[in-house]
């Protein structure tokens, strides 16, 4: 089984975003994550794949970046999302019943 190491700075990315990104590739590789003071070290253990390991390492890095952006949108919009949902169902029969 081929193993590729990918290292992220802890002050750049969060552990949750890296885990979420890794989940999306659960059919391509398994992952071991180790934390140090300043780094998050990921060992990607590749299963059989139709693409090269380098391709999936690259995709994983892009996905971590996307997850970071998603997290920022989520943090900024979560209160308003909850408010919209509360407002949407406040007068509906879904709750009245």
């Amino acid at each position, binding site marked *: 089984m081929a193993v590729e190491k990918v290292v992220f700075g802890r002050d750049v990315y969060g552990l949750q975003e890296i885990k*979420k990104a890794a*989940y*999306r*590739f*659960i*059919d*391509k590789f398994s992952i071991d994550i180790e934390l140090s003071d300043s780094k998050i070290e990921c060992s990607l253990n590749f299963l059989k794949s139709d693409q090269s390991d380098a391709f999936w390492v690259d995709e994983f890095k*892009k996905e971590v970046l*996307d997850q970071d*952006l*998603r997290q*920022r*949108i989520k943090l*900024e*919009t*979560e209160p*308003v*999302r909850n*408010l*919209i*949902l509360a*407002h*949407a*169902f406040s007068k*509906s*029969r*879904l709750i009245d*019943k």
Partner: protein
Amino acid sequence: MSKFQQINFYQSKSAAYKLLPFRFARLDGDKYFLSNMVGEYLILNRNSLDKAVNHKLNSLDQTYIDLRARQFIQDESNSVAFDLLAIKTRTKFSRLSNFTSLHIFVVSLRCEHSCPYCQVSRQSEDKGKFDMTEKIADRAIDFVFKSPSQVIKIEFQGGEPLLNYPLIQYVVEQAKKINITECRNLDFVIATNLALITPQILSFCLQHGIHISTSLDGPEDLHNTNRPRKEKNSYQKAIKGIELARDILGRDRVSALMTTTEASLGRGGEIVDEYIRMGFNGIFLRALSPYGFAIKTKSFAAYQTDKWLEFYRSAMEYIIQLNKDGIAFQEYGSSIILAKMLSARDPGYVDLMNPSGMGIAAIVYNYDGSVHPSDESRMLAEMGDNTFLMGNVLKDSYEDVFSSNSFLDPLEASMTTSVPMCEECAFEPYCGSDPVYHYAMHQDFIARKPDSGFCQKNMGIFKYLVEKMESDPYVKRLFRSWANLK
């Protein structure tokens, strides 16, 4: 000096906008697909997405205007965005409190066909063993009218339902009698292969406004391969039956559905041509069913999904070209998704609902009185797995059946807003969940989405539809018409 202010005067202060909730997915290359909680969407490149999230957009940018128009951002000029999102969200979920409009009666498990993919038919002539009785039908009709839905459709299925035609007559007459006081919008459909159809049966259908839904898998050789009969005449019977039914009921009361088998893959154009030859205005390109060969060999599933997507895309290209050539024809599965993408309307298609449409959109009363939340879960039960069995009309009340754990547990698990990967998926507003499929394939109501053929198939369709719309203005107009938006 001009009497008018420069355009910059009207510009919002930089970063004076708020983000509203939205999600995004990477398409090919630098393109990103953004959708908000009610399914409004926009395509942006990475740079514009970053600028939007970092509050760096100028209010005169086209991206800013597009994001604001679709309620991805809010500034002082669109304070109504909040209310619009709430109203659209409520509209999308309003169907939930009026549940179960489709009631499927499996009036007989017997069939005179012997289709290899079918898990539910029996060749037996033993009527007592495999036909629904009036006693069971009476109890099932009670259940039908306990549903909150104002719109009720009773569909007769099999096996071949016409092998128990007297019971169909009985159910129609009893339901119509009850409906005199219930005043629901009551409709009936017989799903039949038409091999046993007669003018007398069709006269009854005409009298009671019953629709006919039949099977047409494509050209003669394909249809007869998929649907073997001793006499090797399934296709001829279907064509003759369609023509007879149209003569008596009218064209609008007769529809056809195809079943995709491995033999269908690669023959999309021929199948579409057969539907056009028979005067149909569209087709539903249905996916391969996992109940049968695929369920026994899980590794087969992903391979099959790829092959099916290839089949779908190729048939869609053919259909789009037909429309460009002046032949109006649509693909109904895509139309359902496009209605969700391009409007706040949810057509309520069982496989694309959140929570799942099982039991909520449709329910199945089997010949023996057992109640199942979907046709697929009935098939699973016929294969010996009763995980989704809700109860039996002969011994359980409506309340017992709808509060059974075998129904509520998978339904609760099917909320896509709390499923890993679905909750952050930009295509979630158009998708749904299928606990029966995932249980059948992965022994888990949810399953890991990267391994899911259901996810792979739907993502393939969504991306195809978006890319076609974005790359060809004609296709965008065509798809809007399919979604009933002229």
